[in-house]
């Protein structure tokens, strides 16, 4: 489907979500409560069938932490962006998407490690790169006097 057809279809199927045309892809922002359901619908519907998760990114905003999913369909050839924002920065909690796309398990561990977002119902939420008592480096207010030499 082209971008315009995709926008019409998504506005029809997901009335509470915000759908805009971004710089390259269609971007859909959902609420954290309806994230798992929207992802399952996007994967199983025959018109969209997004079965390949390209990339999972965590971004630190001033009031919350956002997670960006780039997804693509291998049968139909279109791609879109799914975005969600947590409620706050002190206790960020999101539902895991491992039942929908299995590769998300390790990407979510990386986001937990570097940004501190907890994922509900994740089977194995541990830190991936860093040790257990390190802070969360990708946050904007991460300060480390011992290790970082500022330029």
């Amino acid at each position: 489907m082209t971008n315009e057809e995709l926008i019409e279809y998504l506005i029809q199927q997901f009335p509470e979500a915000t759908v805009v045309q971004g710089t390259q892809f269609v971007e859909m922002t959902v609420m954290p409560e309806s994230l798992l359901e929207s992802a399952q619908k996007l994967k199983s519907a025959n018109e969209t069938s997004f079965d390949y998760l390209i990339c999972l990114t965590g971004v630190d905003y001033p009031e919350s932490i956002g997670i960006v999913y780039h997804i693509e369909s291998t049968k139909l050839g279109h791609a879109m962006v799914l975005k969600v924002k947590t409620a706050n920065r002190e206790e960020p909690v999101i539902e895991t998407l491992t039942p929908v796309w299995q590769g998300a398990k390790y990407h979510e561990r990386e986001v937990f490690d570097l940004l501190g977002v907890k994922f509900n119902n994740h089977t194995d939420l541990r830190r991936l790169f860093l040790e257990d008592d390190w802070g969360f480096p990708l946050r904007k207010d991460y300060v480390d006097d011992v290790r970082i030499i500022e330029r």
Partner: protein
Amino acid sequence: MSEIKEIFITSDKIKTDDYVINMGPQHPSTHGVLRLLIKLEGEIVLNVEPHIGYIHSGIEKMCESLAYNQIVHLTDRMDYLSAHMNNEAVCLCVENALQIEVPDRVKYIRTIMDELMRISSHQLWWSAYGMDMGATTCFFYGLRDREYILDIFEDTFGARLTLNYNTPGGVMFDIKPDFQKKVKDFIKYFRNKLPEYDQLLSGNIIFTERTKGVGILSLEDTIAYGVTGPSGRAAGFSCDVRKHHPYSAYPFVKFEEMLDTTGDTYARYTCRIREMWESMNIIEQLIDNIPEGDYALKMKGVVKLPEGQYYQRVETSKGDFGVFIESDGKKNPYRVKFRSPGFSNMFALNKMAKGLKIADLVAIMGALDLVMPDIDR
């Protein structure tokens, strides 16, 4: 004698247990600093758990304090065997965001260098893989031929490995006048040498016994885990970014995507060898028709992207590499994320290696072509 035989056949007289061994960060077969905790019963693998982070450098955090044309030199050091393609991904992302079009000469040069880099990466993979399987001759053959490509790189870029040749808007230096002759000589030489690789390894009965039917990953699992590149194409997953979303000079060439259906280690091996042949065909289509023109556009000193999120995909020798840039209008990016193909490829290892022996685990890991700084960033 018969009493000893009796004890070993009726195993309820012997109590066995599972044990965990550590294939540590420093190991000749793990191709970098990868730590595997392997749970074994006898010699059969029950569970493989990778522990990574031994080369994590914080590149994504460092990029937030650099300008856009300074990010390019850090992408060289992630997947150093396809350094040119990583550089190209960042430059294409910035160019698409600014909506500028580079001259045709730049596109042709970038694509020819991409394909040469792909051949050199597969040559090094083949050498290391043969050495892991016990055939040390492969190490010498592959690296001998790779030196010719590195000579060509050194004449043009000045460096063999960490290139830093692309900038947003073009390339840094023009190619020399004898570039075309050197590349054509290399292709003629390599077309005679590549059948030797087949003679050494592909038809060898020890090699085929060790790799056929080993480490099978089905098509649904390949798509679910996001395994791309030749490892994914071996299972039938058509994921070549050069075909589906062409960039640079790929719209001007005709080539085939190497697919296979079995999904085992031997299929991954043959996909890479066939890709080397196909790369040579692509170079031959482009090398004689490089158009004249500028080798770079005039860009402003300080590049600022408009606000928004941008994503660019590039096909490296390992798979689907992606650059995600979020910008808020300032001269440093707000967030840069690199989607590395090795990250998704490696975590399918547990699924592939369950129920096999340890020697098969080494064969599977070699065919996946893992480069650890790519996974850890």
